[in-house]
């Protein structure tokens, strides 16, 4: 660019100029001396002839300066001076914008972190996961993975991983860890390098159980091994099996799943040692959590899908019993396919829209404040116009003020949101899972905040433009700023109505959400989370072999029962509404060909101990409970829920004694019927068929003990927890256990509703604050404009009511209009909310009444001070003033 060197050239230019002028005056003086003048007189005359040297030198220099930039600088300084004169206005404006822009930045950063930004691995944008069939199953079986890996022509390597939990024993206290079982090529495919030692390699895989190696994540190494570089080569025990630590992965690598970061990685071929399931070669057993790889350059996801689907057709033909879905699609990795993504995305987009509305409302608010300011400054503007300033220059000045405020507000909002986001990214809402919410802001977020600030500055800066362009300096200087037409609908009125409507929408929807959440806490879950404690243990982690598990489980149950204050104890493989649940296809008794497409339903499977229903508080409606006699040596039985009875057995009445089939052909007899409940971690789920099987017939080593306390647990769950730990230690000191009250555990299930309600609540409060400042601004302005008129009215004997009506009638009319529009819109909008917040219904008299009351209260609060001011008008003082 041209002007960069010219800046450095300036010094020389200016030096030359001064020198030249000095020589000029000198030459003139010498000539005058030659004409006979004294030196002193000659020098004086020379200077006189030259003119104002300083001024001329400045003028000459100005030629080289950048006029626009420098006049913008002047505008900026003027704007700062102007703003410093009204600190209250500036404060309100900056806080309003900081909140609005901050809210937008936070929501955008979350959206950016979860959806827009690729996973934090090299070339993350070409990384895809595989989904199978119309149901978009992302979980695959290991033999299918091997076929897909070896036969595809679309990926530069296809990696697999699964999530496993294990008990780790480093010689000290046993601890519960979460890890990935990864394929040998996992790190190669992702392009991850070791921080220390080496990573798992394809050559490590030599059949099941062949690679007892551990690669630690940097975070786990840092927190649990205190950055000990000698950790490589050490042997630790996972579920009592020796594993050797071979390396540490790069610090910024947290696995390939957003939300969840593992503690370390082990080869997937060794998963049997950790899970106890020998299903590495079972094609029908789908447990590999996700397959992913980099698409080859130049290939589209559609081409890759076609390639994979042809492999799918081959597998379907070769293994008709296990593989009946041949089509494959690709999906962005990180959120486990389309499992969580659509709901979260819909919610975030909705939130983004609401946050956008907040910003628009804030701009409308500030726009009317600015218009009021511009009207108050009518005299100043008129004077400047009369003195020859151009209208563009005055508008530029107003815009400079607007943009300055919006940038300050944006900066404040960004600082706040960055702080919030950093806290959010290290947040651990669930004590069991290591979480990783990668929402820390990046350049995208900063750009969006800057753009939003500039845009809002222009948006509210543009409001007074019309007013300034229309103003006639002659009229204003003559008449003063009070001579304005009334009764006409102004831009400011419309803005205020729009703003109040938006705020009413926000207030209504947050109320709907809060009310929905409150209701969902008192819904019937089909079990009783109050006064119950959950104890999670995995006997596999303590090295119990399959045949020893049932006896140990009974010992644990008996030990828990002996704790004073515990009324009943049950055991379940995974409690309802916990993350992760068993599912199985079920078939009617008449079905002979047991392939997935013939299934009567997919039922949720619980493996329970006899006393589970009592401990969980689930009502047995008919038939009998399970007992310890229902073991391997008697025919298979189950207790089912009403929904199961209706869908698979035909009716509730015929359920007891009825039969159905499992995918492996086992006939199950139904012996009992229980009430329906909520089973998956989703409050809004529709009734699901569920079956409860005796844990002696369907063994599981990873189980949850349910302890029902016979008194109020809320006061002191710690005491019970200590007792539980003591009993467990007595049974086996090497068994890691995780304890939580059931109500705490429920937080996981309620998490989405809670988050939704919290964010909507925050937005609702923001909306309420904005409407207060908006109405206040409008009311205060209209009172101050009409003080003289009000004074005259009072002098002529107007009553308080009449004065108030004159001063605030208009503000109240606008408030009523905006609120009505907003309530209506809000009720329409909250239909959408019902998808996220369970039991959120807009047709709730309490919500309606609450929203109306809130708006009335807001109006009263906002107009209180202006009303007081209007009433305290002293006509004498006022009339004397002008």
């Amino acid at each position, binding site marked *: 660019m041209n002007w960069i060197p010219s800046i450095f050239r300036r010094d020389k230019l200016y030096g*030359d100029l001064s020198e030249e002028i000095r020589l000029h005056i000198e030459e003139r003086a010498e000539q005058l001396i030659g004409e006979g003048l004294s030196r002193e007189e000659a020098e004086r005359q020379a200077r006189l002839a*030259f003119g*104002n040297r300083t001024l*001329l030198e400045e003028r*000459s220099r100005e030629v080289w300066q950048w006029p626009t930039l420098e006049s913008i600088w002047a505008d900026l300084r003027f704007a700062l001076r102007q703003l410093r004169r009204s600190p209250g206005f500036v404060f309100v404006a900056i806080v309003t914008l900081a909140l609005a822009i901050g809210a937008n930045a936070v929501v955008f950063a979350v959206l950016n972190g979860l959806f827009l930004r690729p996973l934090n691995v090299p070339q993350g944008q070409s990384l895809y996961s595989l989904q199978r069939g119309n149901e978009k199953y992302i979980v695959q079986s290991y033999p299918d993975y091997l076929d897909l890996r070896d036969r595809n022509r679309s990926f530069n390597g296809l990696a697999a991983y699964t999530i496993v939990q294990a008990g780790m024993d480093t010689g000290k206290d046993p601890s519960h860890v979460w890890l990935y079982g990864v394929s040998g090529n996992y790190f190669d495919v992702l392009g991850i390098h070791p921080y220390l030692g080496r990573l798992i390699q394809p050559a490590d895989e030599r059949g099941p159980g062949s690679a007892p190696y551990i690669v630690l994540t940097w975070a786990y190494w840092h927190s649990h091994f205190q950055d000990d570089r000698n950790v490589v080569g050490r042997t630790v025990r996972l579920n009592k099996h020796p594993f050797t630590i071979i390396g540490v992965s790069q610090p910024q690598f947290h696995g390939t799943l957003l939300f969840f970061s593992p503690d370390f990685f082990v080869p997937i071929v060794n998963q049997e040692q950790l899970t106890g399931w020998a299903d590495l070669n079972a094609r029908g057993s789908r447990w590999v959590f996700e397959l992913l790889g980099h698409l080859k350059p130049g290939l589209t996801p559609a081409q890759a899908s076609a390639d994979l689907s042809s492999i799918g057709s081959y597998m379907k033909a070769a293994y008709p019993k296990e593989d009946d879905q041949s089509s494959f699609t690709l999906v962005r990795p990180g959120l486990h396919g389309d499992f969580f993504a659509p709901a979260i995305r819909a919610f975030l987009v909705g939130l983004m829209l609401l946050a956008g509305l907040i910003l628009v409302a804030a701009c409308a608010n500030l726009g009317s404040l600015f218009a009021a300011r511009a009207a108050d400054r009518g005299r100043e503007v008129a004077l400047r116009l009369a003195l020859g300033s151009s209208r563009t220059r005055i508008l530029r000045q107003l815009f400079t003020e607007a943009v300055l405020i919006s940038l300050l507000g944006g900066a404040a909002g960004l600082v706040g949101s960055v702080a919030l986001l950093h806290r959010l990214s290290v947040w651990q809402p669930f004590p069991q899972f290591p979480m990783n919410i990668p929402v820390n802001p990046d350049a995208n977020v900063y750009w969006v905040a800057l753009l939003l600030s500039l845009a809002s500055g222009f948006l509210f800066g543009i409001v007074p433009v019309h007013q300034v362009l229309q103003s006639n300096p002659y009229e204003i200087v003559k008449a003063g700023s009070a001579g304005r037409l009334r009764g006409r609908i102004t831009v400011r009125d419309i803005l205020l109505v729009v703003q109040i409507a938006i705020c009413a929408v926000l207030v209504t929807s947050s109320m709907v959400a809060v009310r929905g959440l409150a209701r969902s806490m008192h819904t019937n879950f089909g079990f009783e989370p109050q006064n119950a404690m959950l104890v999670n243990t995995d006997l596999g982690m303590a090295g119990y072999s399959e045949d020893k598990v049932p006896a140990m489980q009974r010992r644990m149950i008996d030990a828990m029962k002996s704790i004073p204050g515990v009324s009943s104890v049950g055991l379940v493989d995974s409690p309802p509404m916990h993350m992760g649940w068993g599912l199985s296809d079920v078939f009617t008794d008449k079905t002979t060909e047991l392939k997935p497409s013939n299934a009567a339903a997919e039922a949720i499977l619980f493996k329970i101990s006899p006393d589970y229903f009592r401990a969980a508080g689930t009502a047995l409606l008919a038939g009998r409970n399970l007992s310890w006699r229902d073991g391997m040596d008697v025919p298979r039985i189950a207790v089912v829920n009403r929904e199961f009875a209706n869908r698979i057995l035909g009716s509730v009445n015929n359920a007891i004694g009825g039969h159905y089939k499992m995918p492996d052909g086992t006939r199950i007899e139904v012996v009992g019927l229980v009430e329906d409940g909520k089973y998956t971690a989703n409050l809004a789920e529709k009734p699901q068929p569920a079956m409860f099987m005796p844990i002696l017939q369907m063994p599981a080593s990873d189980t949850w003990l349910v302890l029902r306390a016979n008194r109020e647990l809320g006061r002191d769950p710690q005491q019970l927890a200590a007792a539980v730990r003591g009993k467990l230690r007595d049974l086996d000191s090497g068994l890691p256990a995780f304890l939580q009250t059931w109500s705490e555990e429920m937080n996981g299930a309620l998490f989405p509703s809670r988050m939704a309600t919290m964010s909507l609540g925050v937005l609702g409060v923001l909306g309420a604050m904005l409407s207060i400042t908006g109405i206040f601004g409008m009311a205060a302005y209209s009172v101050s404009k009409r003080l003289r008129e009000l004074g005259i009215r009072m002098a002529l004997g107007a009553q308080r009511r009449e004065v108030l009506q004159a001063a605030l009638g208009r503000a109240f009319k606008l408030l009523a209009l905006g609120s009505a529009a907003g309530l209506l819109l809000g009720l329409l909008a909250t239909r959408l909310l019902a998808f996220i917040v369970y039991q959120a219904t807009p047709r709730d008299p309490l919500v309606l009444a609450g929203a109306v009351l809130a708006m009335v209260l807001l109006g009263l609060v906002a107009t209180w001070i202006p009303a007081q001011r209007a009433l305290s008008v002293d006509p004498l003082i006022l009339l004397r003033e002008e």
Partner: protein
Amino acid sequence: MPVENKPMTKTASRDLFPGALEMMILESLRRQPAHGYALVQHIQQRSNNLLQVEEGSLYPALQRLLKAKLVKAEWGVSATNRRVRTYQITASGLRRLEQQISSFERMFEGIALVLNPVNPLPARRNLQ
């Protein structure tokens, strides 16, 4: 006629229309290169001292010409053995001068026609 509100008009052309000083400087330099002091002398002499140009006002004009690359400047020594900065007209300066002279002549002619043949040049009342 719209008049640009340039700083120069405030002092330098209290008695001149904008651009006049630059035009005269270019014309002088076309005849021969000169330094600032010599230019002032030249313009005053040529105008028979009718144009009382404030000497200093020459310099902002010279800087504008320099910036527009219509003239170039060089330090040297004058015939009277003084250190001087000599200005020289450039090729584009010559072209600009021709354009300005012709447009000036047309304007002058127009103004003269509008007024009357007896009263030749009260142009300044119209301008600024």
